[in-house]
């Protein structure tokens, strides 16, 4: 029994890796079998983007989950989850660059420069690049405290991703709004529980309020 409990609280990394790769595998299988509908490129664009944002939020949820559930084992998957978020974002970007636009640089530049939802989406992807690069043990050691600061950019990238999604949809905003609410909640938890901050207010009420205001502010 102890082994089962151990396996559940600390599943081997290859298992977690395989789970994270399931959405990409399904997208690939659907593409192979022509199950992506009449516009497969658009379908892949939407699904890779959805999972990029999904994994980003899952990654950001690791620390709050650990705090609230005491499940410390989860921390060891954070890097992998973050790298999957980056991978899905990269697939999303490559799908746009290659399959959707086929390197039509003129149109790509116009999109990035003129259309705010693409500007913000592209920026978010670019922000994730240094985070992926500095995800190795060596970089964590070298950057020390600055590593933590740098990796707070993940929140900015997630906020950008939510806006990107929100500005994309024509009318049905349910999904981007759900993503946004989750992000705001994660941010609130983060800011609401800063243990050794000198300016921390003892009472829970006003502190939560402040964090909501900060979280609610648009970048």
């Amino acid at each position: 029994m102890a082994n089962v409990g151990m396996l559940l609280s600390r599943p081997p990394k290859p298992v977690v890796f395989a789970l994270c790769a399931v959405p990409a595998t399904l997208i690939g299988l659907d593409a192979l079998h022509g199950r992506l509908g009449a516009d497969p490129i658009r379908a892949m664009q939407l699904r890779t983007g959805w999972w990029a944002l999904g994994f980003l939020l899952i990654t950001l949820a690791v620390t709050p989950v650990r705090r609230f559930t005491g499940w410390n084992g989860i921390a060891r998957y954070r890097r992998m989850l973050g790298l999957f978020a980056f991978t899905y974002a990269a697939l999303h970007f490559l799908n746009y660059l290659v399959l959707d636009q086929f390197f039509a640089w003129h149109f790509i530049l116009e999109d990035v420069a003129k259309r705010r939802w693409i500007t913000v989406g592209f920026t978010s992807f670019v922000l994730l690049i240094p985070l992926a690069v500095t995800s190795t043990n060596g970089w964590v050691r070298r950057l020390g405290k600055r590593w933590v600061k740098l990796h707070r950019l993940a929140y900015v990238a997630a906020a950008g991703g939510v806006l990107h999604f929100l500005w994309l949809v024509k009318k049905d905003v349910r999904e981007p709004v759900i993503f946004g609410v989750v992000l705001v909640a994660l941010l609130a938890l983060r800011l609401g529980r800063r243990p050794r901050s000198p300016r921390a207010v003892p009472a829970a009420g006003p502190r939560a309020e402040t964090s909501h205001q900060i979280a609610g502010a648009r970048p």
Partner: protein
Amino acid sequence: MLIRRPPDIPSRDITEERLYRSRREFIRDAAGVAAAGLAVSSVLAACARRAEGQGTLSAGPNDPATPYNDVTTYNNFYEFGTDKADPARNAGGLRVRPWTVAIEGEVAKPGHYDVDELIRLFPPQERVYRMRCVEAWSMVIPWLGFPLGDLLRRVEPRSAARFVEFTTLYDPQQMPGQRRNILDWPYVEGLRLDEAMHPLTILSVGLYGKMLLPQNGAPIRLVVPWKYGFKGVKSIVKIRLVREQPVNTWQVAASNEYGFYANVNPEVDHPRWSQARERRIGEFRKRPTLMFNGYGDQVAQLYTGMDLRRNF
């Protein structure tokens, strides 16, 4: 003891008898008028061609028809959900017979027309048109329909009539998408009277030689090939001739993005994406979008002297 169990197949998944019968009626009626009308015989010829598996439908040398499966599974019809696959999934329960279209407003002969009566009065012709969605994808669809102008002439618009307003059925029971306020239901579209009278403008009752499926706007819908697809209001229950320019549903939803005219125009971008190119469903590379969707020769004169950037 008799234990009542619900049938394994929900009744909504069984082809409705009326629909089933109406297809037969349609074929019978079409056959009936074939002798008289060359147009209808060409429809039947086209059907026969497809039956032999050598469909050569196209809107031009470079525009082969989009496969039937794509035309009937990739739809924007928010009354049945906002995902492109939703209408094909959710529209099966739409009762398309009996169906009445009210014609009212500034006309000498207002009235209610049964859709089958319309099909008898105006034998459907095949029209293979390009369809350009405002979302920058496109199809080529072999419609069956009749010129809207033929119907309008019959009801005799009064001189005060300057626009035509079309309304989709409002019935949240049958149209689950209407249970949420995604759009300001019912869906309303409009045309200027001269656009409505233009010979390219049709009311469609079928495609690929078959009755329209609900997801494509059964039993009767508008097709205006030089305008973005959202102008093609589906499942029409009311046609009203009016003095003032109607306010169409997408204009209400986002007036900075969707105008009244909505003519296909590669030079006027949507605020969020370029309209210069489009992806033809089934093709890999995007192709350039044509002014008035390639129908400029026939329709450009409708807009002489008009600022198309302002009247988008």
